[in-house]
Protein backbone atom coordinates (compact mmCIF):
# COMPACT_ATOMS: atom_id res chain seq x y z
CA UNK A 1 0.00 0.00 0.00
CA UNK A 2 2.74 2.43 0.82
CA UNK A 3 4.37 2.12 -2.60
CA UNK A 4 1.05 2.93 -4.22
CA UNK A 5 0.76 5.97 -1.98
CA UNK A 6 4.31 6.98 -2.84
CA UNK A 7 3.53 6.73 -6.55
CA UNK A 8 0.45 8.91 -6.13
CA UNK A 9 2.43 11.47 -4.19
CA UNK A 10 5.13 11.49 -6.85
CA UNK A 11 2.58 12.12 -9.59
CA UNK A 12 1.18 14.95 -7.54
CA UNK A 13 4.64 16.44 -7.24
CA UNK A 14 5.11 16.27 -10.99
CA UNK A 15 1.89 18.20 -11.52
CA UNK A 16 2.95 20.80 -8.99
CA UNK A 17 6.22 21.22 -10.86
CA UNK A 18 4.40 21.64 -14.17
CA UNK A 19 2.10 24.21 -12.62
CA UNK A 20 4.97 26.32 -11.38
CA UNK A 21 6.65 26.02 -14.76
CA UNK A 22 3.47 27.33 -16.33
CA UNK A 23 3.21 30.23 -13.94
CA UNK A 24 6.77 31.09 -14.83
CA UNK A 25 6.48 30.81 -18.61
CA UNK A 26 3.00 31.84 -19.68
CA UNK A 27 2.75 35.32 -21.18
CA UNK A 28 -0.11 36.97 -19.36
CA UNK A 29 -2.15 36.91 -16.18
CA UNK A 30 -5.01 34.85 -17.51
CA UNK A 31 -2.83 32.10 -18.90
CA UNK A 32 -0.83 31.98 -15.66
CA UNK A 33 -4.04 31.62 -13.71
CA UNK A 34 -4.89 28.57 -15.84
CA UNK A 35 -1.59 26.93 -14.94
CA UNK A 36 -1.83 28.06 -11.38
CA UNK A 37 -5.28 26.64 -10.85
CA UNK A 38 -5.56 23.42 -12.73
CA UNK A 39 -2.10 22.03 -12.24
CA UNK A 40 -1.64 23.03 -8.63
CA UNK A 41 -5.10 21.93 -7.58
CA UNK A 42 -4.61 18.51 -9.05
CA UNK A 43 -1.04 18.32 -7.74
CA UNK A 44 -1.98 19.26 -4.21
CA UNK A 45 -4.97 16.92 -4.31
CA UNK A 46 -2.88 13.95 -5.40
CA UNK A 47 -0.09 14.71 -2.93
CA UNK A 48 -2.41 14.85 0.03
CA UNK A 49 -4.32 11.75 -1.02
CA UNK A 50 -1.03 9.94 -1.56
CA UNK A 51 0.06 10.73 1.96
CA UNK A 52 -3.32 9.55 3.19
CA UNK A 53 -2.84 6.23 1.40
CA UNK A 54 0.65 5.81 2.82
CA UNK A 55 -0.62 6.29 6.40
CA UNK A 56 -4.12 4.80 6.45
CA UNK A 57 -5.20 6.25 9.80
CA UNK A 58 -4.70 9.73 8.44
CA UNK A 59 -6.84 9.04 5.39
CA UNK A 60 -10.13 10.71 6.51
CA UNK A 61 -8.30 13.86 7.50
CA UNK A 62 -6.34 13.82 4.26
CA UNK A 63 -9.55 13.40 2.30
CA UNK A 64 -11.09 16.38 4.04
CA UNK A 65 -8.04 18.53 3.31
CA UNK A 66 -8.06 17.46 -0.33
CA UNK A 67 -11.74 18.29 -0.72
CA UNK A 68 -11.17 21.68 0.89
CA UNK A 69 -8.38 22.43 -1.59
CA UNK A 70 -10.58 21.26 -4.46
CA UNK A 71 -13.31 23.67 -3.39
CA UNK A 72 -11.32 26.76 -2.64
CA UNK A 73 -8.54 26.90 -5.21
CA UNK A 74 -10.73 27.19 -8.32
CA UNK A 75 -13.04 29.71 -6.68
CA UNK A 76 -10.17 31.97 -5.65
CA UNK A 77 -8.62 31.75 -9.10
CA UNK A 78 -11.92 32.71 -10.64
CA UNK A 79 -12.11 35.73 -8.33
CA UNK A 80 -8.57 36.70 -9.27
CA UNK A 81 -9.27 36.42 -12.97
CA UNK A 82 -12.43 38.43 -12.69
CA UNK A 83 -10.68 41.13 -10.72
CA UNK A 84 -7.98 41.27 -13.33
CA UNK A 85 -10.49 41.66 -16.15
CA UNK A 86 -12.39 44.37 -14.33
CA UNK A 87 -9.32 46.38 -13.51
CA UNK A 88 -8.26 46.20 -17.12
CA UNK A 89 -5.26 43.91 -17.08
CA UNK A 90 -4.57 43.46 -20.78
CA UNK A 91 -4.51 40.14 -22.54
CA UNK A 92 -1.48 38.94 -24.35
CA UNK A 93 -1.59 40.37 -27.88
CA UNK A 94 -1.55 36.94 -29.39
CA UNK A 95 -4.72 35.72 -27.79
CA UNK A 96 -7.64 36.03 -30.14
CA UNK A 97 -10.99 34.44 -29.60
CA UNK A 98 -12.28 33.67 -33.08
CA UNK A 99 -14.96 31.07 -32.57
CA UNK A 100 -16.14 31.31 -36.13
CA UNK A 101 -13.01 29.60 -37.43
CA UNK A 102 -14.40 26.13 -36.77
CA UNK A 103 -17.63 26.92 -38.53
CA UNK A 104 -15.78 28.48 -41.45
CA UNK A 105 -13.61 25.38 -41.76
CA UNK A 106 -16.74 23.23 -41.83
CA UNK A 107 -18.33 25.37 -44.55
CA UNK A 108 -15.17 25.32 -46.63
CA UNK A 109 -15.01 21.55 -46.33
CA UNK A 110 -18.57 21.32 -47.70
CA UNK A 111 -17.59 23.66 -50.52
CA UNK A 112 -14.59 21.58 -51.50
CA UNK A 113 -16.58 18.34 -51.39
CA UNK A 114 -19.21 19.91 -53.65
CA UNK A 115 -16.47 21.08 -56.02
CA UNK A 116 -15.08 17.55 -56.21
CA UNK A 117 -18.62 16.34 -56.96
CA UNK A 118 -18.70 18.73 -59.92
CA UNK A 119 -15.76 16.91 -61.46
CA UNK A 120 -16.95 13.37 -60.91
CA UNK A 121 -20.65 13.56 -61.76
CA UNK A 122 -21.28 12.29 -65.25
CA UNK A 123 -24.78 13.67 -65.58
CA UNK A 124 -24.37 17.34 -66.33
CA UNK A 125 -27.52 18.38 -64.49
CA UNK A 126 -26.10 16.93 -61.28
CA UNK A 127 -22.82 18.73 -61.88
CA UNK A 128 -24.68 22.02 -62.28
CA UNK A 129 -26.57 21.49 -59.04
CA UNK A 130 -23.29 20.79 -57.27
CA UNK A 131 -21.86 23.99 -58.72
CA UNK A 132 -24.86 25.89 -57.38
CA UNK A 133 -24.12 24.42 -53.95
CA UNK A 134 -20.52 25.64 -54.23
CA UNK A 135 -21.75 29.17 -54.99
CA UNK A 136 -24.25 29.09 -52.14
CA UNK A 137 -21.67 28.00 -49.56
CA UNK A 138 -19.26 30.58 -50.96
CA UNK A 139 -21.85 33.28 -50.37
CA UNK A 140 -22.24 32.17 -46.74
CA UNK A 141 -18.46 32.32 -46.34
CA UNK A 142 -18.53 35.82 -47.82
CA UNK A 143 -20.97 36.81 -45.10
CA UNK A 144 -18.63 35.47 -42.44
CA UNK A 145 -15.80 37.45 -44.00
CA UNK A 146 -17.84 40.61 -43.25
CA UNK A 147 -18.76 41.29 -46.89
CA UNK A 148 -22.59 41.39 -47.07
CA UNK A 149 -22.76 43.08 -50.49
CA UNK A 150 -20.60 40.41 -52.05
CA UNK A 151 -22.64 37.71 -50.31
CA UNK A 152 -25.86 39.04 -51.83
CA UNK A 153 -24.32 39.31 -55.28
CA UNK A 154 -22.80 35.83 -55.17
CA UNK A 155 -26.02 34.25 -53.91
CA UNK A 156 -28.27 35.83 -56.51
CA UNK A 157 -25.89 35.70 -59.47
CA UNK A 158 -23.80 32.63 -58.74
CA UNK A 159 -26.41 30.34 -57.27
CA UNK A 160 -29.43 31.63 -59.16
CA UNK A 161 -28.67 33.05 -62.56
CA UNK A 162 -25.67 30.90 -63.42
CA UNK A 163 -27.62 27.73 -62.65
CA UNK A 164 -30.46 28.99 -64.83
CA UNK A 165 -28.28 29.70 -67.85
CA UNK A 166 -26.45 26.37 -67.47
CA UNK A 167 -29.74 24.51 -67.42
CA UNK A 168 -30.88 26.31 -70.56
CA UNK A 169 -27.61 25.47 -72.29
CA UNK A 170 -27.81 21.80 -71.24
CA UNK A 171 -31.36 21.64 -72.53
CA UNK A 172 -30.17 22.77 -75.92
CA UNK A 173 -27.11 20.51 -76.12
CA UNK A 174 -26.11 17.28 -74.43
CA UNK A 175 -27.22 15.93 -71.12
CA UNK A 176 -24.58 13.33 -70.30
CA UNK A 177 -20.84 13.57 -70.39
CA UNK A 178 -19.32 11.11 -72.84
CA UNK A 179 -17.82 7.97 -71.43
CA UNK A 180 -14.58 8.30 -73.36
CA UNK A 181 -12.71 10.95 -71.46
CA UNK A 182 -9.03 10.43 -71.88
Amino acid sequence: MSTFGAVVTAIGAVFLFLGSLGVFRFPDVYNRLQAGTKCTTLGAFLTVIGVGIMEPEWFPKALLIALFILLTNPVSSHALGRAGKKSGVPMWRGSVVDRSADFKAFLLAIMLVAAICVTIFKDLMNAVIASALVSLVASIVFYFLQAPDVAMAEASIGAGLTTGIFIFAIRRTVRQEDEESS
Partner: protein
Amino acid sequence: MRRALSLIVLLVLAVGLASALRGPSVGAEARRASLIDDDEVNFGRRYNSRAVEETGASNVVASVLVTYRGLDTLGEVTVLFVAATGLAALLHTGRRRRSEREATPASLIVFTGCRFLFPLILLFGAYIFAHGHLTPGGGFQGGAIIASGFLLIYLGCRGRQPESKRLSAVESLAGLAFVLIGLIGLAVGGSFLLNFLPEGSPYALLSAGIIPVVYVFIGFKVGSELGGIVGDLSGAR
Protein backbone atom coordinates in the same frame (compact mmCIF):
# COMPACT_ATOMS: atom_id res chain seq x y z
CA MET B 1 -1.11 10.59 -69.95
CA ARG B 2 -2.91 13.90 -69.89
CA ARG B 3 -4.36 13.16 -66.50
CA ALA B 4 -0.95 12.34 -65.03
CA LEU B 5 0.57 15.50 -66.44
CA SER B 6 -2.26 17.62 -65.08
CA LEU B 7 -1.95 16.08 -61.64
CA ILE B 8 1.77 16.81 -61.58
CA VAL B 9 1.18 20.43 -62.56
CA LEU B 10 -1.50 20.80 -59.91
CA LEU B 11 0.70 19.23 -57.26
CA VAL B 12 3.51 21.65 -58.03
CA LEU B 13 1.06 24.55 -57.87
CA ALA B 14 -0.37 23.35 -54.57
CA VAL B 15 3.05 23.02 -52.98
CA GLY B 16 4.00 26.46 -54.19
CA LEU B 17 0.83 28.00 -52.86
CA ALA B 18 1.13 26.26 -49.52
CA SER B 19 4.66 27.44 -49.00
CA ALA B 20 3.50 31.00 -49.49
CA LEU B 21 1.09 30.74 -46.62
CA ARG B 22 3.24 30.96 -43.56
CA GLY B 23 0.85 32.88 -41.47
CA PRO B 24 -1.02 35.89 -42.80
CA SER B 25 1.58 37.42 -45.04
CA VAL B 26 -0.75 39.21 -47.44
CA GLY B 27 -3.58 41.61 -47.09
CA ALA B 28 -5.10 43.77 -44.47
CA GLU B 29 -4.45 41.37 -41.60
CA ALA B 30 -0.71 41.46 -42.15
CA ARG B 31 -0.56 45.21 -42.32
CA ARG B 32 -2.70 45.71 -39.29
CA ALA B 33 0.17 46.28 -36.91
CA SER B 34 1.58 49.29 -38.70
CA LEU B 35 -1.10 51.84 -38.07
CA ILE B 36 -0.34 55.01 -39.93
CA ASP B 37 2.39 54.79 -42.49
CA ASP B 38 3.30 58.07 -43.99
CA ASP B 39 5.09 56.72 -47.00
CA GLU B 40 2.52 54.06 -47.91
CA VAL B 41 -1.08 54.93 -48.65
CA ASN B 42 -3.57 52.37 -47.41
CA PHE B 43 -6.63 53.03 -49.52
CA GLY B 44 -8.98 50.84 -47.57
CA ARG B 45 -8.36 52.67 -44.32
CA ARG B 46 -8.52 56.02 -46.07
CA TYR B 47 -11.89 55.28 -47.64
CA ASN B 48 -13.28 53.87 -44.40
CA SER B 49 -12.38 56.96 -42.43
CA ARG B 50 -13.47 59.56 -44.94
CA ALA B 51 -16.36 58.06 -46.86
CA VAL B 52 -19.22 59.47 -44.80
CA GLU B 53 -18.12 63.07 -44.81
CA GLU B 54 -16.86 63.11 -48.37
CA THR B 55 -19.78 61.40 -50.06
CA GLY B 56 -22.52 61.11 -47.45
CA ALA B 57 -23.22 57.43 -48.07
CA SER B 58 -23.33 55.01 -45.17
CA ASN B 59 -22.38 52.05 -47.31
CA VAL B 60 -18.67 52.51 -47.93
CA VAL B 61 -18.61 49.89 -50.71
CA ALA B 62 -21.27 51.90 -52.58
CA SER B 63 -19.24 55.08 -52.40
CA VAL B 64 -16.13 53.20 -53.50
CA LEU B 65 -17.98 51.73 -56.48
CA VAL B 66 -19.59 54.93 -57.69
CA THR B 67 -17.45 57.85 -56.54
CA TYR B 68 -13.94 56.74 -55.78
CA ARG B 69 -13.68 54.07 -58.47
CA GLY B 70 -16.51 55.14 -60.76
CA LEU B 71 -14.56 54.57 -63.96
CA ASP B 72 -14.16 50.88 -63.12
CA THR B 73 -17.94 50.56 -62.77
CA LEU B 74 -18.39 52.23 -66.13
CA GLY B 75 -15.95 49.75 -67.64
CA GLU B 76 -17.80 46.85 -66.07
CA VAL B 77 -21.13 48.07 -67.45
CA THR B 78 -19.48 48.22 -70.86
CA VAL B 79 -18.18 44.65 -70.56
CA LEU B 80 -21.66 43.45 -69.65
CA PHE B 81 -23.12 45.27 -72.63
CA VAL B 82 -20.55 43.77 -75.03
CA ALA B 83 -21.20 40.27 -73.67
CA ALA B 84 -24.96 40.64 -74.06
CA THR B 85 -24.58 41.95 -77.60
CA GLY B 86 -22.19 39.18 -78.57
CA LEU B 87 -24.48 36.55 -77.12
CA ALA B 88 -27.47 37.92 -79.01
CA ALA B 89 -25.44 38.02 -82.21
CA LEU B 90 -24.29 34.42 -81.77
CA LEU B 91 -27.67 32.98 -80.98
CA HIS B 92 -29.83 34.78 -83.47
CA THR B 93 -27.95 34.18 -86.69
CA GLY B 94 -27.91 30.85 -88.41
CA ARG B 95 -30.77 28.58 -89.19
CA ARG B 96 -34.02 29.77 -87.78
CA ARG B 97 -34.77 26.26 -86.58
CA ARG B 98 -37.51 26.37 -84.05
CA SER B 99 -36.97 23.54 -81.59
CA GLU B 100 -38.81 20.40 -82.54
CA ARG B 101 -39.89 19.70 -79.02
CA GLU B 102 -42.24 22.63 -78.88
CA ALA B 103 -42.71 23.06 -75.20
CA THR B 104 -46.15 22.33 -73.84
CA PRO B 105 -47.68 25.47 -72.40
CA ALA B 106 -47.47 25.77 -68.67
CA SER B 107 -50.40 24.77 -66.53
CA LEU B 108 -52.72 27.46 -65.28
CA ILE B 109 -51.56 27.17 -61.69
CA VAL B 110 -47.90 27.63 -62.52
CA PHE B 111 -48.74 30.41 -64.93
CA THR B 112 -50.81 32.34 -62.41
CA GLY B 113 -48.32 31.82 -59.61
CA CYS B 114 -45.41 33.10 -61.68
CA ARG B 115 -47.43 36.02 -62.94
CA PHE B 116 -48.31 36.91 -59.37
CA LEU B 117 -44.76 36.64 -58.10
CA PHE B 118 -43.09 38.57 -60.90
CA PRO B 119 -44.04 42.14 -59.82
CA LEU B 120 -43.17 41.31 -56.21
CA ILE B 121 -39.71 40.20 -57.27
CA LEU B 122 -39.31 43.38 -59.30
CA LEU B 123 -40.35 45.43 -56.28
CA PHE B 124 -37.84 43.65 -54.07
CA GLY B 125 -35.05 44.24 -56.56
CA ALA B 126 -36.02 47.90 -56.83
CA TYR B 127 -35.96 48.22 -53.04
CA ILE B 128 -32.46 46.80 -52.95
CA PHE B 129 -30.99 49.15 -55.50
CA ALA B 130 -32.87 52.18 -54.20
CA HIS B 131 -31.38 51.70 -50.73
CA GLY B 132 -27.96 50.75 -51.99
CA HIS B 133 -26.19 53.61 -50.30
CA LEU B 134 -27.66 52.88 -46.86
CA THR B 135 -27.78 49.12 -46.45
CA PRO B 136 -25.94 46.21 -48.02
CA GLY B 137 -27.01 45.97 -51.61
CA GLY B 138 -26.83 48.22 -54.59
CA GLY B 139 -27.31 48.33 -58.30
CA PHE B 140 -25.76 44.98 -59.21
CA GLN B 141 -27.53 42.94 -56.58
CA GLY B 142 -30.88 44.58 -57.33
CA GLY B 143 -30.37 44.06 -61.03
CA ALA B 144 -29.56 40.39 -60.48
CA ILE B 145 -32.77 39.92 -58.51
CA ILE B 146 -34.77 41.58 -61.28
CA ALA B 147 -33.12 39.25 -63.75
CA SER B 148 -34.11 36.25 -61.65
CA GLY B 149 -37.68 37.54 -61.90
CA PHE B 150 -37.30 37.36 -65.66
CA LEU B 151 -35.89 33.86 -65.32
CA LEU B 152 -39.08 32.92 -63.49
CA ILE B 153 -41.18 34.26 -66.34
CA TYR B 154 -39.19 32.38 -68.98
CA LEU B 155 -39.48 29.16 -67.01
CA GLY B 156 -43.05 29.35 -65.85
CA CYS B 157 -45.09 31.33 -68.33
CA ARG B 158 -44.25 29.81 -71.65
CA GLY B 159 -47.05 31.32 -73.61
CA ARG B 160 -46.42 34.95 -72.89
CA GLN B 161 -42.91 36.32 -73.05
CA PRO B 162 -41.71 39.84 -72.33
CA GLU B 163 -41.19 41.97 -75.39
CA SER B 164 -37.59 41.72 -76.42
CA LYS B 165 -37.51 45.15 -78.02
CA ARG B 166 -38.65 46.86 -74.85
CA LEU B 167 -35.97 45.14 -72.81
CA SER B 168 -33.26 46.23 -75.22
CA ALA B 169 -34.60 49.77 -75.20
CA VAL B 170 -34.55 49.93 -71.39
CA GLU B 171 -31.05 48.54 -71.29
CA SER B 172 -29.65 50.99 -73.80
CA LEU B 173 -31.39 53.98 -72.27
CA ALA B 174 -30.15 53.14 -68.78
CA GLY B 175 -26.57 52.79 -69.97
CA LEU B 176 -26.87 56.06 -71.84
CA ALA B 177 -28.17 57.77 -68.71
CA PHE B 178 -25.20 56.59 -66.69
CA VAL B 179 -22.77 58.09 -69.20
CA LEU B 180 -24.84 61.28 -69.32
CA ILE B 181 -24.57 61.70 -65.55
CA GLY B 182 -20.84 61.41 -65.86
CA LEU B 183 -20.81 64.02 -68.61
CA ILE B 184 -22.95 66.37 -66.54
CA GLY B 185 -20.42 65.98 -63.76
CA LEU B 186 -17.73 66.87 -66.27
CA ALA B 187 -19.62 69.97 -67.37
CA VAL B 188 -20.42 71.15 -63.87
CA GLY B 189 -17.31 70.42 -61.92
CA GLY B 190 -14.50 69.54 -64.26
CA SER B 191 -14.08 65.81 -63.71
CA PHE B 192 -16.02 62.90 -65.14
CA LEU B 193 -18.51 61.33 -62.69
CA LEU B 194 -18.07 64.10 -60.19
CA ASN B 195 -20.46 63.99 -57.28
CA PHE B 196 -22.40 67.15 -58.03
CA LEU B 197 -25.72 66.61 -56.25
CA PRO B 198 -26.02 67.77 -52.64
CA GLU B 199 -24.90 65.32 -50.03
CA GLY B 200 -27.74 65.59 -47.60
CA SER B 201 -27.78 64.10 -44.16
CA PRO B 202 -26.52 60.58 -43.62
CA TYR B 203 -28.97 57.67 -43.24
CA ALA B 204 -31.60 59.54 -45.26
CA LEU B 205 -32.91 58.10 -48.50
CA LEU B 206 -32.18 61.16 -50.58
CA SER B 207 -28.57 61.67 -49.73
CA ALA B 208 -25.09 60.85 -50.94
CA GLY B 209 -25.16 62.89 -54.11
CA ILE B 210 -25.30 60.95 -57.36
CA ILE B 211 -24.89 57.51 -55.76
CA PRO B 212 -28.59 56.55 -55.54
CA VAL B 213 -29.28 57.98 -59.01
CA VAL B 214 -26.42 56.02 -60.57
CA TYR B 215 -27.47 52.91 -58.69
CA VAL B 216 -31.01 53.19 -60.05
CA PHE B 217 -29.71 53.31 -63.61
CA ILE B 218 -27.27 50.48 -63.00
CA GLY B 219 -30.07 48.40 -61.50
CA PHE B 220 -32.26 48.91 -64.56
CA LYS B 221 -29.40 48.20 -66.92
CA VAL B 222 -28.08 45.07 -65.24
CA GLY B 223 -31.59 43.73 -64.69
CA SER B 224 -32.73 44.11 -68.26
CA GLU B 225 -29.38 42.93 -69.61
CA LEU B 226 -29.20 39.73 -67.59
CA GLY B 227 -32.89 39.16 -68.31
CA GLY B 228 -32.15 39.49 -71.99
CA ILE B 229 -29.24 37.04 -71.69
CA VAL B 230 -31.46 34.52 -69.97
CA GLY B 231 -34.13 34.96 -72.61
CA ASP B 232 -31.65 34.50 -75.45
CA LEU B 233 -30.27 31.31 -73.96
CA SER B 234 -33.69 29.85 -73.36
CA GLY B 235 -34.41 30.17 -77.01
CA ALA B 236 -37.61 32.05 -76.55
CA ARG B 237 -36.60 35.17 -78.40
